[in-house]
């Protein structure tokens, strides 16, 4: 039965279910093997394109090793092209525990953690942007009503929400936001009481 479900699944569904939950691992791997932080997002994007296109041709039995092989090949290609770093310096795949459950979908779904992460993401938004996202997501208002409620035009709501979409994605998938807010929380708690 499991096999049947797999073959019926669209590449889109497969990508969302198997690949996206591994984003923190993929990004960490890229960081460790690429010096220029500014290019990490582009690399991640290119990796996703390669992974998606390979999966359309043939769906792998095990997603994790498949993906890391692709990411690794991509870095090798890049290094070769840029002639920056000798290939040998790539972190060996063996260093990564590919069997670890750390980023498994089950873990990533842990609802409580997710809500905390989303709340962190809200903290990172500008005031107007946050209000739009809260009205839309927490109160379930339609965009038209959000506009009316905030007294701005629908176009501006779209701008706010689009920004919110992107920042939330960063916190949910890549989890970059969480470290910062954890640090903030730590500092808050560490502050002496008056």
């Amino acid at each position, binding site marked *: 039965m499991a096999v049947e479900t797999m073959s019926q699944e669209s590449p889109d569904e497969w990508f969302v279910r198997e690949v996206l939950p591994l*984003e923190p691992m993929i990004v960490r791997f890229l960081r460790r093997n690429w010096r220029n932080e500014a290019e990490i997002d582009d690399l991640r994007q290119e990796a996703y394109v390669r992974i*998606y296109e390979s999966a359309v041709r043939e769906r792998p039995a095990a997603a994790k090793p498949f993906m890391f092989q692709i990411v690794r090949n991509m870095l090798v290609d890049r290094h070769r092209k840029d002639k920056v770093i000798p290939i040998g310096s790539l972190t060996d795949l063996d260093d990564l525990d590919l069997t670890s459950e750390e980023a498994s979908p089950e873990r990533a779904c842990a609802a409580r953690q997710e*809500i905390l992460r989303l*709340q962190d*993401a809200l903290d990172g938004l500008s005031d107007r942007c946050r*209000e739009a996202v809260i009205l839309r997501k927490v*109160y379930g208002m339609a965009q038209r009503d959000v506009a009316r409620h905030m007294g701005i035009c629908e176009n501006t709501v779209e701008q706010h*929400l*689009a920004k919110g979409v992107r920042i939330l994605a960063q916190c949910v*998938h890549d989890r970059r936001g969480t470290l910062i807010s954890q640090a903030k929380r730590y500092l808050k708690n560490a502050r002496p009481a008056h």
Partner: protein
Amino acid sequence: MKNSDAIEDEAAHWLVREERGLGLKERVSFEHWLAEETAHRVSYLRLKASWRKADQLSAIRESLPRTRPSLRRHLAILPKAAPLAALAACGLLLLTGSWNYFSAPRDLAVATAAGEHRSFALSDGTKIELNGNTSLQAKESGPGRVVTLDHGLAYFEVVHDEHHPFTVYAGNRKITDLGTKFSVYRKDDKVEVVVKEGRVRIDIVNSPVATPVFADRDNMVIAKADETLLAPKQSANATDNLTWRSGLLIFNDERLADVAKEFNKYNKKQILVAANAGDIKIGGSFRQDNIEGFKSLLEQGFDVRVKEDRGKIYVTK
């Protein structure tokens, strides 16, 4: 290749516009944009996945600071009329009682006996399927379409109409369709909702300020009294929960006592499991009316004694 930042920006705008609703022309250019480059598609999928997850934020509503006047103001206009509408709907249904099958729109009451499986359509094309032992009333003559589920399990394939909302009342829960297929099970004050497609909104009827829960595809909601649990379900499981529609019961390592309860929903012949056998774990799929098959499987496969007496099946260790 465009850089990821520019693509992500486009993807975010498309996602927001898609949620707002695309016109035909827009829909075409969106499809075109998606197909243009894989980079567009993966970026869109990534944003959409997390944006959907952000629906869980509705759970933090109560914890938001009260210092947001605009939000508070909004709270005040939440539908206080809901319980009244429910009451009115019930009252009218009791009065109308019978119905004319061929006039539309119509108000009707439908009930099934144990083991019976019935489906029908409302005048707008919305499909409703009733499992055994289920009773509900549907009213579509008012401004909205209202179904009241008295007890049992029903599945809804709703033809969405923004101006003619579709709601199901089950116990103290109000389930509002947001373009969807879903099932509702009610037993006394316990209500379970499984979403197969689209979204629903679930409110507590007598408490307009309580947090509404939004359930997505493959979500399952279990509600009792004032507690509402939103469980993210793997797609396979949500399908399992809806397999009664195909007449199949699927169990996955579940207690014999619970399995028997499930069978008893569909059959006149009831299975009674002794306490000492209730904890045996079983799995598999069975036709819900194939109680004989289930019985013989129990005898063969497990260390239990099965005895039938006056229309009841007794299982002991």
